[in-house]
């Protein structure tokens, strides 16, 4: 293909995106578009799957049958999200095994928030309320992203995430309406999850390396700082309803801006966790690698059985 031909294709491609047309897996796309999407979609899929671990940690200890069932269903939803995001990613010409390998070798990232420990039941409420809340803010714009399989997956993911967020908030509400001990548990969870949730929306715009290109491809519709502000503005009144305090002495409504002002985020902590030195990075990776390695003989058996069955069928047919 000549350079001119490629330039032509690129121009047509950009024009399609500008017209809000969806790009489908078999359509021509620039290699960079493909690679960027593999990176982002797989990172998203990995986050869903690693994200099962901190919450899964409380399934056996959930305080009531209703909560146990709801938590199981929620964590199962995350597995489902992982499954169709991996599938969306596979349409770009990469296998699930390769994607897992990237996760297990540390080549691919996942959301750093899941490297924090869930130490009390209230953390399950806080994760639903704050972490899923931040995820929704990140993801709703992606329902209109340019790559068709990703956009369609996001529609379903967002519906379920929004249910999870309400469920998390309801756990918090129940705690805050409970005994002083329960309310303290809720406050403690907010104290620990607030800042990591703000970090979840990514580095500041000045530090974000992918923003410009991603905006062009509608893989991102708002900058990290805009999303963070939206999250804070939305969440602070919810904390007020609960009667618990956001752990930021600088948090203040700014009449002029029509937004909350907020304190400095500890970006050193953010980068420490991103670089693999958070409280549970090692545990999370070990759990994923163990599940995968311990499951190898099971997957091999399933393949062997399927091929035996297939050859028996062929032999009978002959």
């Amino acid at each position, binding site marked *: 293909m000549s350079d001119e031909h490629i330039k032509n294709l690129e121009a047509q491609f950009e024009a399609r995106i500008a017209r809000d047309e969806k790009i489908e897996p078999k359509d021509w796309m620039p290699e960079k578009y493909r690679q960027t999407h593999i990176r982002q979609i797989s990172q998203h899929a990995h986050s869903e799957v690693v994200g099962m671990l901190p919450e899964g940690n409380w399934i056996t*200890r959930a305080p009531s049958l209703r909560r*146990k069932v709801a938590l199981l269903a929620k964590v199962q939803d995350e597995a*489902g999200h992982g499954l169709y995001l991996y599938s969306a990613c596979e349409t770009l010409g990469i296998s699930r095994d390769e994607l897992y390998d990237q996760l297990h070798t540390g080549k691919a990232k996942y959301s750093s928030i899941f490297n924090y420990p869930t130490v009390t039941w209230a953390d399950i409420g806080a994760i639903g309320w704050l972490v899923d809340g931040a995820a929704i803010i990140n993801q709703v714009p992606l329902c209109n992203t340019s790559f068709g399989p990703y956009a369609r997956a996001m529609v379903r993911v967002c519906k379920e995430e929004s249910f999870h967020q309400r469920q998390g908030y309801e756990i918090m509400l129940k705690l805050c309406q409970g005994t002083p001990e329960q309310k303290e548990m809720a406050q403690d969870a907010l104290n620990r999850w607030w800042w990591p949730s703000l970090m979840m929306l990514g580095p500041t715009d000045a530090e974000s390396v992918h923003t410009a290109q991603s905006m062009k491809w509608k893989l991102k519709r708002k900058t990290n700082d805009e999303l963070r502000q939206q999250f804070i503005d939305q969440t602070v009144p919810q904390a007020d309803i609960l009667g618990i305090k956001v752990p930021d002495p600088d948090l203040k409504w700014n009449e002029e801006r029509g937004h909350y002002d907020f304190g400095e985020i500890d970006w050193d902590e953010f980068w420490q966790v991103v670089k693999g030195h958070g409280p549970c990075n090692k545990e999370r990776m070990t759990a994923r690698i163990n599940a995968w390695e311990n499951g190898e003989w099971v997957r091999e058996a399933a393949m062997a059985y399927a091929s035996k069955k297939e050859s028996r069928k062929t032999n009978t047919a002959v």
Partner: protein
Amino acid sequence: MNTGLYKYILGIADNCLILGQRLGELCGHGPNLETDIACTNLSLDLLGQVRSYYQYAAKLKADDSTEDDIAFLRNEREYVNVLLVEQPNTDFAYVMGRQFLFDAFHLMFLKELQNSHDITLSAIAKKSIKEVSYHHRFSSDWVKRLGDGTEESHSKMQSAINDLWTYTDELFHLTEADEEMIKEGIGVDTPKFKDEYYNHLTDILEEATLTVPESKYFHKGGKLGIHSENMGFILSDLQYMQRTYPNMQW
């Protein structure tokens, strides 16, 4: 309160609770996402059934008891699940072996329970049969896959079946409450389908190229509240919140 019926319900429901709890431990750690999701489904179905049974049991108690009091606030000796369901998730072969040995029984049991003179139990059975038919298909397919898969999976599946087999006889033991309820046309006369159960296991195991264990020695005790050493640890997790923070709403 109809004590016999209450105890009878616990005898059914505790199996679902403890097996549901065991399966819950696996969530996020399955051999791949598809089986992870499927095992969580089994757990969800079982816990859904547990809620129906305990809500009914709580109603029979006619005091302030709730489903959660029954699920979380009994002492170990008061749980009457069979030993089979409390066996650990040693590996995926044990998980599927345990599931298969239980599902085959559970399905036959529910088919009979549909005809119970107790309309609530009959209704729960009718609803649960659909779920348990799927469980049974899922677990027996996996027994076949692992049994007739690779050499390694065959050997793991055979060990799991050999070990877990010794817990199957207890499924057919009758407690006083069982006998009382059978007489009243409420309970299921399980020994009636014992031969059918073992014939069915034999068929599936043979199809899976596995050897049917010949052991004539079996374990028992769970139905009388005498459990294995696993049970205390299961309950430590299960009851943690309710015991640590008594009398609170969640």
